[in-house]
């Protein structure tokens, strides 16, 4: 490893640790959220340094982009409800004991103990990592042996949508469950975004077609190069959230059309799984002649559903239409 590469990696590793520490140690919550977004972006660089461009794309779009907007929206809503707190306490306040303590709510003893336990954990895990970092092929030879039968040319896509397609199917179900949970808990409809500036509106108007094109390209590219459904869906979600922030909600009301589109990814995936089971006898075992086409079909519907779910997680549904 060259000296410059080592220096860069060392600096990046140090930046990650310092950003993580400052995120949790900063007294201002807004600063903490911004530091976490910066941490996500630095982490994308780390993924590139570890030869994981698929993850770098997803981390930049989801980890830094979507999570950042999510946290800032939540921060705004927490501040709002604190200012407009009702004079009569809610149902849970009657049983809450009064705790008139400052931020340092634990004594010194428990804090030192917690720090010691954390250091012990870090030492144990660090030793284990040191000992396990011997050169190892892992599952690479097994994957490469099966690549011709997978239907795609990119190993990560083959693993995601063919060899371990079951995990991806369950992940889509997790996405839908999270959306159901968030919608069930929503009391206020949308976070209160500030009035968009003309610069943001003009920028959004110019960017949205381009970003949609990039998302479509990432989807198509996933079969032979880093890309695929998750990256495309995350980028598309970023575009839809940007449209929301610029004052033009891009999604229709939460009616039958939107619900069908959200459910489409999982439905198509389960449908293909059942068809494959009836044809080949095992769940999600694609007939090798049409494996590529099936994967593209699944990825296209997954892109749409992922984009819609991530957008709805951030923006909520139109006021008064959750049911």
């Amino acid at each position, binding site marked *: *490893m060259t000296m410059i590469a*080592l220096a860069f*990696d*060392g600096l990046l590793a140090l930046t*990650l*640790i310092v950003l*993580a520490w400052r995120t*949790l140690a900063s*007294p201002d*919550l807004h600063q903490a959220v911004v530091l*976490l977004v910066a*941490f996500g972006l630095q*982490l994308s660089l*780390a993924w590139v340094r*570890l030869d*994981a461009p698929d*993850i770098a794309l997803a981390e930049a779009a989801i*980890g830094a982009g979507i*999570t950042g907007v*999510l*946290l800032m929206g*939540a*921060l705004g*809503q*927490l501040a709002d409800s*604190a200012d407009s*707190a009702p004079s009569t*306490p*809610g149902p849970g*306040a009657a049983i*809450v004991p*009064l705790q*008139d*303590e400052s*931020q340092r*709510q634990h004594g010194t003893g428990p804090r030192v103990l917690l720090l010691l336990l954390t250091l012990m*954990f870090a030492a144990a*895990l660090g030793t284990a*990592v040191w000992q396990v*970092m011997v*050169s190892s*092929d*892992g599952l*690479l030879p097994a*994957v490469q042996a099966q690549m011709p039968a997978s239907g795609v040319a990119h190993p*990560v896509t*083959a693993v*995601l949508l063919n060899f*371990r397609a079951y*995990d991806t199917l369950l*992940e889509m179900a997790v996405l839908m469950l*999270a959306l159901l949970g*968030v919608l069930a*808990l929503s*009391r206020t409809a949308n976070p209160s975004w500030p009035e968009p500036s003309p610069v943001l509106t003009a920028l959004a108007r110019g960017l949205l077609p381009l970003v949609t094109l990039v998302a479509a390209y990432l989807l198509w590219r996933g079969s032979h190069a880093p890309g695929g459904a*998750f990256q495309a869906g*995350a980028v598309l979600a970023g575009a839809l959230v940007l449209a929301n922030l610029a004052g033009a909600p891009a999604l229709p009301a939460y009616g039958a059309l939107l619900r069908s589109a959200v459910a489409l990814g999982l439905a198509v995936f389960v449908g293909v799984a059942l068809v494959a089971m009836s044809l080949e006898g095992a769940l999600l075992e694609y007939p090798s002649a049409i494996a590529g086409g099936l994967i593209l079909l699944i990825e296209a519907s997954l892109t749409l559903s992922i984009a819609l779910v*991530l957008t709805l*997680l*951030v923006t909520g549904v139109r006021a008064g239409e959750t049911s």
Partner: protein
Amino acid sequence: MTPALLYGLTAVALCAIGLHGAMAQAHLLRRILALNILGAGVFLLSVALARRAPHLAPDPVPQALVLTGIVVAVCVSALALALLRHLQADIGRSALPEDGAATGTEAAGPARDA
């Protein structure tokens, strides 16, 4: 010091920071931030372990699993934040009752007199 080892040790540090924060912080939003950092540490460790053979291509299986993990992590964050909003609307503060009220510049609810 290969990149895999360097990022592996960084991942251990991130896991420790995140774990400590998740336990020690009183304000629930900070706990959510700490859990995000813990998740990032775990993902970094997995991908570093996938890079143990520098002369070969990286192992695609941990990379695919981490890709799944990132999407699941954002879902967890979204659901946790919705629960936090619900909790604050109920009891008026952003910390659990046994952890005391968060004060200062935190966006917590007002303290109540018994």
